[in-house]
């Protein structure tokens, strides 16, 4: 099945946001730029 790239981007972005809110990124894995 071909997944629409737009929806895939939205899903990945919200998974990343959820991981930040759960403290995985930022607290456990520092993100600096």
């Amino acid at each position, binding site marked *: 099945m071909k997944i629409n790239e*737009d929806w895939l*981007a939205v899903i*990945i972005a919200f998974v*990343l946001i959820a991981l930040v809110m759960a403290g995985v990124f*930022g607290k456990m894995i520092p993100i600096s*730029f």
Partner: protein
Amino acid sequence: MDERKNSTTGFIAGLVIVVGLAVLAWWITKQVYALKLPLGIPGKALEYPLWAALAGLLGNVILKALKFHAYVRPGFRTELFLKIGLVLLGAGVSFATLTSAALGSVLQGLIMITCVFFFCWWLSGKFGLDDKLRAVMSTAISICGVSAAIAAAGAVAAKKEQVTYITSLVIIVALPLMVIAPLLAGAMGLSDSVAGAWFGGNIDTTAAVVGAGTIYSTKAQQIASIVKSTQNALIGVVTFFLALYFVVVVERKQGERPSPKLIWERFPKFVLGFIVASLLFTFGVISKEASATIDGLKNWAFTFAFVCMGLELSLGDLKQMGWSPVAVFLIVTVFNTLLGLGVAWLIFGALFPV
């Protein structure tokens, strides 16, 4: 089966290369930030998108020399990384900014897209370019480069090399503009919002718009992204009318009947993600602290996108198609730049100052 296995391993290998080059770009960015450059330019002005694109170009040259480029290409996902970055960007934009800029950006988007599209269509006709190439180029310059070029190519069933040609031109022109536009805006003393609206309405690729905004200021980056996102949201409308024109006038034999469903299918869905992320931030579901971390992730996503842009640049395809499309592209870009400056100043400086 073997082909599929090759494409999967090529995808993974490509992704590993993109990550490696992104880390290299991040490291260079950190070094350059500490420098003081000639002409009084602070090192910070040369932000991460530039180094990411250069790292991508370096990878491009090496991979082609090793004849490894085509194999790992499935891992170069420019648009995907760009869209992930744009949704993450939403998590740092308060809805108050979005609504205050919305009216101005919709107005600016409509004026710019209409004028630039028809100027490019007319001029490319004078130069005798192929109708499909005209459609892809006009959409790419008037809306947002790579994704608009892809959407327009789908609507008019353009040839793959025409899309690659326009995409390469878009990238080549957008990269210097990304650095020059903020310098010019600074020299003219433009306010953050006028400068942001100018970058958003003028520079062709979304990533370069964000790059130019980043170089200027945080507020310019936000306004530039909002103006660009509004303009991108109009891709569906333009591709709908293009598809209609090509089906009804240019290629009546091909049986595609454009419908409202077509607009929805071609509507850039990541814009919805941007708005939802922005609402979550506005209503405090995403805290300021989390937003700062998400901002770091957004920078990584854009770095990946720029590395992919550098990796996908193809000078060979450009040579094959001759110089007249380049001439048209450059003339229209100058027209776009001047018109964009006037419209941004009028709307964001005089009518709806943000």
